């Protein structure tokens, strides 16, 4: 009779958990570590907090203790227990997905991902938006793909091209966000005002801004600023198209960036210079122009 060996796991916040080897090997990752002889001391799990690790161990214990259901038979009691087990808040659920993936506990991964997939079907538009942000935050797109949890939506440009975009990225546009909330985004979203050339750029902008970790309060992200400055180094036609697209799609930061760029081009120039830059039509008579200049004299000093 094999004596049951105790394995010690250490969570990211330093707590130690003792469990029997037979329970620990529900995790493929830990199983391999034991086989490779790396489990003599406590196994550190820097990606798993004590709160989540406790739950994972609870799951493994239950599944080890319950006698295996016979082939083609379903253990109803265990199923009910599982259903209760996943009745947790969303953040915990996503943390469990990450832990199950990292520890290689396939049945737990199946259970949690299926729960999320089912949740999304029932959700209101607002909740969907939040879920997609959580998925983006924890980089769960690949896992979600396996479980057919839709994390992308389709945008169609005015010239008929299709763009597949992460929902979290598309939500940078308030216009699209409202469509998701109103559940009008299940099929492709047509954008008749935006060409593929411009839409590609807009998506590039949104992607960069979603993926860059938010600058902490009182810190400015210099790298992002430099990237933005480069982003607007385009010809005038493209710049104005970007302004129109940002306005139509309601992407405030892009609208501010592009408008600021045009304002910087205007600033400090004489009216003649401004007209030259933007090829402005000139419809004042000389007398009218003189009148305007007099009206606002200091502006022209």
């Amino acid at each position, binding site marked *: 009779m094999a004596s049951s060996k105790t394995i010690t796991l250490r969570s990211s916040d330093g707590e130690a958990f003792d469990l029997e080897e037979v329970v620990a090997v529900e995790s493929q990752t830990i199983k391999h570590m034991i086989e490779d002889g790396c489990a003599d001391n406590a196994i550190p799990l820097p990606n798993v907090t004590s709160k989540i690790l406790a739950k994972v161990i609870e799951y493994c214990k239950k599944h080890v203790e319950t006698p295996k259901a016979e082939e083609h038979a379903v253990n109803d009691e265990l199923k009910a227990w599982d259903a209760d087990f996943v009745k947790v808040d969303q953040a915990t659920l996503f943390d469990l997905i990450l832990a199950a993936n990292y520890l290689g506990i396939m049945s737990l991964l199946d259970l949690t991902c299926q729960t999320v997939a089912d949740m999304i079907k029932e959700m209101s538009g607002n909740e969907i938006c939040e879920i997609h942000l959580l998925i983006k935050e924890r980089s769960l797109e690949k896992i979600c793909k396996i479980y057919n949890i839709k994390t992308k939506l389709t945008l169609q440009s005015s010239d008929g091209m299709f763009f597949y975009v992460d929902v979290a990225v598309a939500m940078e546009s308030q216009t699209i966000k409202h469509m998701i909330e109103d559940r009008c985004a299940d099929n492709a979203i047509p954008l008749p005002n935006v060409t593929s050339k411009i839409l590609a750029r807009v998506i590039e902008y949104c992607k960069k801004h979603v993926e860059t970790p938010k600058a902490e*309060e009182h810190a400015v992200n210099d790298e992002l600023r430099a990237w933005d400055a480069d982003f607007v180094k385009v010809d005038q036609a493209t710049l104005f198209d970007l302004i129109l697209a940002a306005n139509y799609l309601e992407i405030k930061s892009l609208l501010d960036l592009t408008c600021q760029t045009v304002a910087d081009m205007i600033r*400090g120039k004489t009216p003649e210079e401004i007209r030259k830059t933007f090829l402005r039509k000139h419809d004042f008579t000389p007398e009218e122009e003189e009148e305007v200049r007099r009206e606002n004299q200091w502006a022209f000093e």
Partner: protein
Amino acid sequence: MDSTYGKSRDRISNLPDAVLCHIISFLPTKFAVGTSVLSKRWRYLWASIPNLDFDDDLLLDRDKPIGDSERSICFKNFVDKVLLHGSISCIRKFRLKCSDHELDSAVNSWICTALERNVQDLDLYFDTEYPIELPPKFFFCKTLVVLKLSFSIFLDIPSSIWFPSLKVLHLRSVEFSTDDSAQKLLSSCPVLEELVIERWRWDEQWVFNVSAPTLKSLAIYFSVDGLACIAEREDELVDELDNELLVAPQVGPEDESEDEAEDEPEDQKYKLVVDAPNLEYLSITDFVSEDYLMSNLSSLVKAYVNVGPTIRGIDDQILYRGRIYELLRGISNVKHLSLSGETLHVNKDECEIEEWTLPLQVPTCVELHLNEVEIKKFDGLDYELGAIEFLLKNARVLKKMSIDCRDWRDGQEFCVCEKLSGFTRASRSCEFSVFCHCGGIRMFS
């Protein structure tokens, strides 16, 4: 002409009015009004923008010979005209930068106009010869959410004062009439969240009291002799500051022997008092205060501390060190602490002691809360290493320590890195990085 010439002509005219206004809103009012002459469509677009930004320094043509008083009249007429223009009934943002003291009564009436039009964001920057006083109705503004006052402004706080909507307040070296003015001002802001206080001159505010129950973010820049560190932002102004104001009030009698000190009247000391239970972010750059009292900072998440002895000198090294320790103890709940090398360097010139005396008791913040330490301007001196060794030995939940050696010459950081890697660490999962001159980062696990 290529075939797209016709199409690309007037692309800017394809934008809707609202977008054109948005573009104009990024321009100071002088340039915004300047767009009025572009075409009939643009003539009055500027007038619907609720943001006004007047700066008497802006001259389109710098070489134009225009006398000072003529310039003054011109500026006054311009501002008067713009404010008279009926369509801006509700001013959202009003910024006024003025260096002409002749205009002070006009300035007063302009501020009154802004207040009457329910201004939400008021930014006044005066560098006039004599400070400008604010009109009485200023102190009751119900609509102000953001207030920024810079330099030549004299704040005579009346006994009743109330800013019910004020969330953001920046005071840049303004003059107060009494020494409790600052605190009276803060007490009249029931929803204040962000406070920035700069002090560039010696004044009579011996005790600077920041007691604000709703405050979330506090930034302090007190630096008279250390002007270099903030001069990069206001180059011209530094030259113009009245030199008299840079002379420090005399410290008490030179004789420092302890027995006699008891008989002398207590010297006035500059003290900073902070009591802010909701404060999450604190930044202190302080080369003026000689004593600190931090209390109730139970919500503090992030702190940046850059303090050092003032030009007035340190009377007693041990006492001084004790005060720095008190400051750090007061922020004991902080999770992320950023310290400048200056802060660790508590022994200046005169003193022979070179080590950083380790506190007898490990501050709670270091033991239980400290997550991240960032050391900028690291010189590699013994007391700095001593401080780092202390932190590593005691910070049990330390996740990240980064040390900035970018000012060092290439390769110099080697021996320091060796010493650093030898220190015992209380926290096993600490990520340790040293930023080197070459741009590389040495990591230790």
